[in-house]
């Protein structure tokens, strides 16, 4: 009979299970991996390889090997654009995670039978169309829009500060559009928190806040990290929101890549930019996974 493994942080239970089902993971992962290889890895490698060739005069590809596109990526202009996009995406992700986690926590604290419904209603607005929602924000925020109307109705006479076509509008738009994803991501680990653990913590004298900070939060940090990554990744590649809510006045990495492929017909440079973008993001994600593993190790696992 397999021995029960010792209580080692993060590994309780997994070692012995793996002994039993060591070969099975491959079968489980196979369909997904095959799909990804066929419909993502191969096509993308083909396109990204173009980074090493030259753009033809009229936008086709000239198959002469060159590193000029790769070199161009390091131009300060593009570095600046990347940093700006990362800043906006990071801000949006940070705020979204706070709001989303709070919402997910609140949903998870409701009676169980209401939870699916609440989740559904949290997600429902996002089954309307992205553009439609963004235009609704424009109606709200523009100088002659509803928020101005409300202010005037309440008696405010002066010139309204510019709400729309600002960086702030873009951030709000991003938060709004990706909030449900954070809620869903955070809900997953929150939904099965064993209430007895929190009770035990309080029985032992910890306040509600301390219980939250030192018991609940660490156990659900995986959801937070996932949610942050979702919003960050989706925001950084987004080109619709900066164009519509930012009035096209910000160049984000998403627009930049889009422009290379579609406006300049410069697939090689677009491919080079994408390669670097992917590499940087991959690096960030590895960091995040690393941090999550560290943060979630040492906990007592529970069903």
């Amino acid at each position, binding site marked *: 009979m397999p021995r029960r493994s010792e209580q080692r942080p993060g590994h309780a239970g997994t070692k012995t299970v793996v002994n039993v089902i060591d070969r099975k993971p491959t079968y489980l992962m196979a369909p997904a991996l095959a799909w990804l290889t066929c419909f993502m890895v191969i096509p993308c490698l083909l*396109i990204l390889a173009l980074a090493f060739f030259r753009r033809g005069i009229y936008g086709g590809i000239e198959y002469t090997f060159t590193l000029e596109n790769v070199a161009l990526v390091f131009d300060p202009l593009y570095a600046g654009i990347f940093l700006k996009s990362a800043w906006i995406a990071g801000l949006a992700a940070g705020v979204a995670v706070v*709001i989303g986690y709070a919402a997910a926590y*609140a949903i998870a604290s409701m009676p169980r039978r209401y939870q699916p419904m609440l989740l559904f209603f949290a997600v*429902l607005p996002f089954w309307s*169309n992205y553009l439609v929602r963004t*235009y609704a924000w424009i109606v709200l925020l523009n100088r002659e829009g509803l928020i101005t109307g409300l202010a005037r109705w309440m008696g405010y006479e002066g010139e309204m500060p510019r709400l729309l076509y600002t960086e702030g509008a873009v951030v709000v738009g991003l938060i*709004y559009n990706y909030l449900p994803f954070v809620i869903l*991501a955070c809900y997953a680990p929150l939904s099965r928190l064993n209430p007895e653990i929190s009770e035990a913590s309080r029985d032992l004298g910890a306040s509600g806040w301390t219980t939250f900070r030192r018991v609940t939060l660490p156990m659900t940090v995986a959801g937070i990290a996932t949610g942050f990554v979702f919003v960050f990744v989706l925001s950084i590649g987004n080109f619709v929101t900066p164009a519509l809510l930012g009035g096209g006045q910000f160049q984000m990495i998403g627009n930049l890549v889009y422009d290379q492929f579609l406006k300049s017909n410069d697939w090689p440079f677009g491919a080079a930019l994408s390669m670097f973008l992917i590499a940087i993001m*991959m690096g960030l994600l590895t960091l995040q996974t690393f941090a999550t593993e560290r943060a979630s190790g040492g906990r007592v696992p*529970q069903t």
Partner: protein
Amino acid sequence: MTGQSRVTARLMLLILGVVFAFLYIPISVLFALSFNEGGLPAAWTGGSTKWFGALLQNDDIMGAALNTVIVAVFSTLMATLFGTLLAIGVEIRRRKGRFLETIIFAPMIIPDIVLAIALLSFFSMLNVTMGLHTIIFAHVVFNLAFVCSVVRARLKTFDWSIVEASTDLGAPILITLWRVVLPVLAPAVIAGALLAFTLSVDEFIIAFFTAGAGRDSITLPMQIFAMIRFGVTPEINALSTIVMCVSVVALALSQRLNRGGLPGQ
């Protein structure tokens, strides 16, 4: 959660109220605009339901809406299946391969224009007929990555000893997965599926490029994007209103039929 004080309960309700207000304010705007007599959102010119009528007669929009649902449903089903299995497989493994992690995260990181063009070029190279099915194939790619992430987040706090107990008792691995692991994972799987569905329903770039050239593979985001020449018409607002109402009705019906609640409760 049991054992929380009244203050906490009130706080929870307050949070929910604020967040839902934030979520629904733009929605109420577009809801109101769908009844606006005039075409431009700039001015309210009176109440009217004429846009709903115009909408239902607009075959293009209705056709696109149907296509969107087909694409979303199928890509969600496949992505949830593949993604969940992938998540379980990855979390079971003793070694966490860096390469594996890269492939799993890649669909989320690759700019969608790159994926879109890559797939179109690839399909074109292989002379594949494009159509709704190619959109579905493409959507499964990023959907499964998101489902996998959500399910993995749940699996981090999963107690594998129950799996061990089940196999100790002689259950074959598939039965263990089906009857022991899955019920526990259910909320995460459902959350992942909802996520995938939402992503698919609203996705434009990849759909545009991987669609066929004809009318019958146009999805709603493609249709709406093309129609924004004149800004968002009340017709489109009316459509969004209808979509959400229909979803609510569908949910209410499913609650009725499924009084048992979610599995695992």
